[in-house]
């Protein structure tokens, strides 16, 4: 006969039941993840299936709207045989480089301008009207102006991507700065922070979710800017690929290029989300999702 103290017994049952509860919670998470992936795939499959069927029965005219199988063949031929402008990866690389440069410059510019104007009332009052004006300029027109000013090389595409990105990021950074909690700013000031320190340690962290929200949408915009730039004149890039395909009535080519663009956007999106999760890991989970 072994004697077990009731307290130890109690503690042991508690530990077991917690372990069970936690295992159950983990299983729930896994199931949910599987559900999400499953639903996403289901939607994709249904969408592509309907499209293909529609194309087969000519409800959706594949001459204009392509068909999934045709698109797939096109992508495959680009991968295996290359495009008329050279290998596919080179086109992707060129566009990605322009997009990326434009995105970085536009985002940094937008953030900087947003913070400076958001922090300085007078500058905001004076300059925001000009930013509004600049934002109403049609980008295609701007595209031609850039081509004249910067030439047909990479610079003009980057510039176009920059102006696509800048305004969105600026608007959010500006508002994010203004939304920063006044008690927190006061606290930092009293704790001894210089205006620059306040900007760095209070304003930017509190505007961060604003800025990140704009980055999510603006990478897509940068891509659009670069492609439009290539449309207006280029020797390489996805935009040229689309333009050629359009000219040759190759709807499959147009859509194939768009799908490649989408994949590029998703990859970058994934990176941004990673970064976001890292940056805002301090954030409270909504109620009901936090207990283990």
């Amino acid at each position, binding site marked *: 006969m072994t004697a077990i103290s009731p307290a130890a017994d109690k503690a042991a049952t508690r530990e077991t039941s917690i372990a069970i509860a936690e295992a159950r919670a983990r299983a729930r998470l896994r199931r949910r993840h599987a559900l999400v992936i499953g639903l996403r795939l289901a939607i994709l499959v249904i969408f592509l299936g309907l499209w293909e069927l529609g194309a087969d029965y000519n409800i959706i005219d594949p001459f*204009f709207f392509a068909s999934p199988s045709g698109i797939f063949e096109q992508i495959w031929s680009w991968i295996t045989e290359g495009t008329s402008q050279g290998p596919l990866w080179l086109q992707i690389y060129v566009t990605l480089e322009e997009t990326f440069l434009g995105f970085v410059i536009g985002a940094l510019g937008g953030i900087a301008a947003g913070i400076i104007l958001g922090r300085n009332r007078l500058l905001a009052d004076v300059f925001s009207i000009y930013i509004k004006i600049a934002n109403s300029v049609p980008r295609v027109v701007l595209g*031609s102006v850039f081509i004249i000013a910067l*030439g047909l090389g990479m610079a003009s595409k980057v510039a176009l991507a920059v102006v696509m990105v800048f305004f969105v990021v600026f608007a959010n950074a500006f508002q994010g700065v203004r939304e920063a909690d006044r008690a927190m700013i006061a606290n930092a000031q009293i704790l001894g922070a210089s205006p620059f320190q306040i900007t760095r340690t209070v304003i930017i962290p509190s505007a961060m979710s604003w800025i990140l929200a704009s980055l999510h949408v603006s990478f897509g915009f940068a891509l659009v800017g670069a492609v439009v730039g290539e449309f207006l*004149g280029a*020797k390489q890039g996805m935009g040229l690929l689309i333009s050629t395909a359009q000219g040759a*009535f*190759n709807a499959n080519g147009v859509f194939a290029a768009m799908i490649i663009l989408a994949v590029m956007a998703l990859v970058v999106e994934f990176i941004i989300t990673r970064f976001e999760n890292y940056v805002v890991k301090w954030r409270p989970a909504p109620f009901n999702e936090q207990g283990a």
Partner: protein
Amino acid sequence: TGATAASAADKITIIVGGMEKQIYLPAVLTQQLGYFKDEGLDVELVNSRAGVEAENELLAGAVQGVVGFYDHTVDLQSKGKYIQSIVQFSQAPGEVELVSAKHPEIKSPADFKGATLGVTGLGSSTDFLTQYLAVRNGLKPGDYTLLPVGAGNTFIAAVKQDQIQAGMTTEPTIAQLLKTGEASVLVDMRTPEKTKEALGGDYPAASFYVQSSWVEGHKDEAQKLANAFVKTMKFIASHSAEEIADKMPKDYYAGNKDLYIQGLAGGKAMFTPDGRMPADGPETVLKVLSTFSKSLQGKQIDLSKTFTTEFVDAAK
């Protein structure tokens, strides 16, 4: 000479107003055939859908040459900018006035009254040519409406949706619409003969032009370029549509190769056999333009400055 040595290494950039378009086919074909390399030239072709972009780049000095419509040289002269065609690719516009199958009542441009006519853009060559056709057939501006619908898909959609009853466009849009039977040819300007019939003269269209000032300092390069292009023109004249199509990048006919060849066969005749400007061509262009283009009205145009045959003459 020293200039030759220095410029031989230079890169020459040429803008093509739509590399995949058949009317500008000689540009890419020359590249594909390696004729630039044969001449020791390092030529880079850049695509630009909008003609204006190309001209602006040329005038800004960022590129050395443009493959585009000849009429721009005339138009720009009226604005004080001098560019000249040094190789003439085509002696016909390569455009066709198509009429929608839904409107069999339109049998000639004289029936355009009350119709909406598709053009690629206002102020474009298609605009002027369409109006010229109408006026030549006794209509007044205002009897018809022009609608800029672009080229390609949007043009086809406009026909299908009956937003235009007739419209002017180029290959491969023509072949596409003919194939589906949604439109038929009303006025064909793909061959020199039919163009003369329609417009009363040759209408030089696709050409290779450069800034007049550039020619002065780069005679050597200009000559080499002319050599290469003239060779290509001869190649076109001596080969069948299939043979030419085989030389072109696959993406240009990815939509439908047969259609591409068919279009090329129909339009091959518009190309000049030797790159030379047809004798009465410039006058026809000026006549058409000055009738409708506001910017040309009241301006004195010196046609001899808009082209030169110096280089094609010297080409072997």
